[in-house]
């Protein structure tokens, strides 16, 4: 059914809204958030989300450790981040409030489930002698709506055959219904979703729908809510859109690459947060010839992918920092074998096991330098959820066409975050051309056949891909140094030096195919260039545009190729007085830039397992532009 919007209550228009849903891991917060996201996206808003999961282990209900959050930024304008601060904070219990209050802007609105503020909840949340923040004035700087969501949901579900526990699980639908009302959105999309999800369990379907509608109607009827809001569609480029997370984008990009190369996709992986979802997604698409192999460990994962590539598939492996650390030796082998391989690192907080569910960019050095011997491997990074699709496709293209392993860097922030995607048409994706060798007639005796040269190179320094089964091309390859052209084992000093150089040149030449470098925004020379990479894109772009509005001479370039660099960078950097490199690490890209271009690049570093806010970038840039006390130094 479709609820009809009574225009009873006044409607205010907003350009953009940041709403943060928070509750117990069990409260279905992620679902509420993603449903509201889809609804707004479908409506035509631009959106950006940031799901913030509790630490891997599920904590006791009601504790701070158990709080799950979902932040959504939607608007009638272009959106690049989930928003620095929330306009509205929806909390299902006391812990959710305590954990997220600092993310709400002063004067912001709090919608609290009063039932989650019982003495017990307050104690669990660590409110000293269980003072109820909803009533003790601590929230006087905010607009607080305290609603007994639990009770109202139960009422709405009277007569339902469900047990109390199951009924209470519908709370999140009540909230969603209410928020839909509040932002003048229909329940339609969610109803469709529920119809599919609970097709086999009519009682649950009925209950969830009733809660959803009850929430909507509550908004309509309740006295406490006097106004509702409207966020008009955003002026997005014409086209058809869908919503997508970074890990979905990565999975789809891999399938597209394999299809476009005419290869089977082999994905050898060992589960690890936050990379596992790529495995989950790919395992659902076997009808694309996708073969997923859950290996016994990360070493077996990459080695199985190497074996698959040797057999003529697109071999891919993925992990996060600790798992990538285990792949170093095999990466060296792939580099020696010179076969296609895509290695995905969905970065998380480190070092060691670190902060598995938090985001970070501290594996760049590992990607560029983390191997024994001279083992150059291209490194590519995605900057947004949708960019994951484009960049992993680029990684696969380079791997296959240049016969080399390629490292693709993502991180927990964009891997789990979602944004609208104007997905491409298959036909518009450029095909990938594997440099297959051409089989040769076999003669009955090996002696007579002129030896096949597996390490003969074309003008780009790329060798041919000879697959088992191809007649007359039998050859042996391995990790020992090879003789030029023949690939036979060779310890000859000059040959070793030559091979090291040939491998290095092959990788260096890949830069020849890159598109000319272009600024993301700003003047092509001036006071300050902000150089970013990876998931900091949205925050930097927002800050850069803001600074430009403010009349500052600031430009922004975002690197997708971390190794080799885009050749245009050499000319671009000197055109600015200063260079700022914001990173969620201690300055790893900065170190690479300084060594390569001998420029005194400055760092803006945040290592908190949380993405930058655009304000942090703006302040950091201002400090560099005019080291004045004005721009208060929010140490990022």
């Amino acid at each position: 059914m479709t609820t009809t919007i009574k225009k009873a209550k006044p409607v205010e228009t907003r350009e953009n809204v940041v709403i943060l849903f928070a509750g117990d891991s069990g409260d279905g917060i992620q679902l509420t958030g993603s449903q509201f996201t889809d609804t707004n996206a479908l409506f035509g808003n631009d959106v950006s989300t940031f799901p913030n999961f509790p630490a891997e282990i599920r904590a006791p209900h009601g504790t701070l450790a158990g709080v799950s959050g979902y932040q959504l930024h939607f608007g009638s304008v272009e959106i690049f981040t989930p928003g620095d601060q929330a306009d509205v904070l929806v909390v299902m219990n006391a812990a959710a409030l305590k954990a997220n209050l600092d993310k709400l802007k002063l004067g912001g609105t709090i919608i609290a489930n009063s039932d989650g503020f019982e003495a017990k909840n307050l104690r669990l949340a660590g409110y000293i002698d269980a003072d109820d923040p909803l009533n003790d004035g601590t929230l006087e700087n905010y607009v607080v709506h305290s609603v007994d969501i639990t009770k109202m949901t139960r009422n709405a579900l009277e007569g339902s055959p469900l047990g109390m526990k199951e009924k209470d699980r519908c709370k999140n639908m009540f909230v969603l219904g209410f928020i839909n009302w509040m932002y003048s959105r229909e329940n339609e999309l969610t109803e469709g979703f529920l119809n599919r999800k609970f097709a086999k369990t009519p009682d649950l379907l009925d209950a969830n729908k009733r809660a959803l509608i009850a929430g909507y109607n509550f908004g309509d009827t309740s006295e406490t809510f006097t106004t509702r809001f409207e966020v008009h569609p955003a002026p997005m480029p014409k086209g058809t859109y869908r919503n997508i997370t970074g890990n979905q984008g990565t999975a789809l990009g891999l399938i597209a690459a394999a299809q476009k190369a005419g290869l089977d996709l082999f994905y050898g992986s060992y589960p690890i947060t936050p990379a596992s979802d790529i495995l989950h997604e790919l395992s659902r698409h076997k009808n694309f010839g996708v073969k997923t192999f859950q290996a016994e460990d990360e070493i077996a994962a990459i080695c199985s992918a190497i074996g698959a590539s040797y057999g003529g598939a697109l071999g891919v492996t993925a992990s996060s920092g600790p798992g990538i650390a285990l792949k170093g030796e095999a990466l060296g082998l792939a580099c020696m074998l010179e076969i296609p391989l895509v290695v995905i690192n969905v970065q998380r907080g480190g070092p060691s096991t670190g902060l598995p569910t938090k985001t970070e960019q501290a594996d760049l050095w590992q990607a560029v330098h983390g191997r024994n011997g001279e083992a150059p491997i291209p490194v590519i990074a995605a900057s947004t959820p949708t960019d994951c699709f484009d960049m992993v496709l680029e990684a696969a293209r380079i791997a296959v066409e240049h016969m080399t392993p390629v490292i693709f860097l993502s991180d927990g922030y964009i891997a789990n975050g979602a944004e609208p995607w104007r997905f491409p048409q298959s036909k518009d994706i450029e095909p990938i051309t594997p440099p297959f060798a051409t089989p040769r007639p076999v003669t009955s005796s090996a002696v007579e056949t002129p030896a096949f040269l597996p390490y003969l190179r074309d003008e780009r320094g790329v060798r041919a891909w000879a697959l088992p089964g191809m007649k007359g091309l039998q050859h042996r390859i391995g990790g020992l140094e090879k003789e030029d052209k023949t690939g036979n084992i060779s310890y000859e000093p000059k040959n070793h030096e030559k091979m090291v150089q040939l491998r290095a040149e092959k990788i260096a030449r890949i830069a020849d195919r890159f598109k000319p470098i272009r600024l993301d925004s700003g003047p092509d020379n001036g006071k300050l260039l902000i150089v970013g990479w990876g998931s900091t894109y949205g925050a930097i772009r927002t800050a850069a545009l803001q600074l430009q509005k403010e009349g500052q001479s600031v430009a922004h370039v975002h690197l997708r190729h971390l190794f080799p660099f885009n050749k245009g960078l050499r000319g671009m950097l000197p055109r600015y007085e200063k260079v700022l490199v914001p990173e969620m690490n201690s300055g790893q890209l900065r170190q690479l830039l300084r060594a390569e271009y001998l420029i005194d690049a400055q760092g803006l570093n945040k290592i908190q397992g949380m993405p930058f806010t655009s304000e942090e970038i703006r302040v950091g840039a201002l400090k560099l532009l005019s080291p004045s006390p004005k721009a208060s130094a929010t140490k990022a």
Partner: protein
Amino acid sequence: MSTTNGTPKPVVTPSAVEGQTKLDYSSDQDVRWCPGCGDYSILKQVESVLAQQGKPKEDIVFISGIGCSSRFPYYLDTYGVHGIHGRAPAIASGLRSVRPELSVWMITGDGDALSIGGNHIIHLLRRNVDLNVLLFNNEIYGLTKGQYSPTSPEGAVTRSTPMGSVDHPFNPLALCLGADGSFIARSMDRDVKHLREILLRADTHRGTSLVEIYQNCNVYNDGAFETFTEKATKPMHTIFVEHGKPLVFAAGSKGIKLDGTKPMIVDLATGDASANDLWIHDERDPLKASLLTRLFDDPKYEGAMPRPFGVFYVHERATHETKLNAQVALAKEKKGVGDLDALLRGEHTWTIG
């Protein structure tokens, strides 16, 4: 390369590929093992088996790890990968997942397979990837010049154990059976006829065929197996088991019978026991097979049981790649061959302008 379901290996008669002689399968690289190394005889038998099976060279792949033994692939004119230490099983598993029609052999050593590669081997065996695995056991690290290995006997004095090893060694076949291997066998470099037979059996088995081969490293561990290989001692210390045949040794003068689960040696010469009382070898019996693997006494000791050679256990079960590719086929059948545009568009879309 689009792949097919785990198609049965083409059963090719020797004549199938015209004019292939044994020599045909050897590469142009000169063999670089120490003179007298047991590896030579194994290479010879493998070449002979390849010739007999007569599969096209380009459809055969040899994958190895690192070690003297692992240089093996260089010496054959097939496809080959000299991998990294201990990881051959993973490389081979990936290859077979996407190319189930190929014939894949894996060459490894006691260090490569049981030390650094131990985990991959046991997972390979449980998954039952269709490979012929030749485990060259010389009870030493040859390539790195003589440190003890996981199969070296306790007390072994080697370069890394001047006072003798304190590690209790693996019983390789007991371990492999414990990992649910589907084909478990043992042979030796010195008995070329037996070795050849076992290799043939291994090649025809569908699944992971694990063959432990006692191999003499005449430089760092010379004579490690001489009690089993030398004329004088071989009869008393070895027993060659064959499916359906009683366990007899010592040129038929002795046999082994089972008292419940306890094996005991009986004398056949002095008629106090007859062949009928003996333990009849049944390749298909996993329980008996595990008893066989336990016949692992140190021959030095009085009354030691003879060491069994032959095929201990065979069990036909679906290979990993067959099941994997079957799912792909099924998915294509059920959902239809993937349509990229449908995938990219997903479930909810909206259009602007």
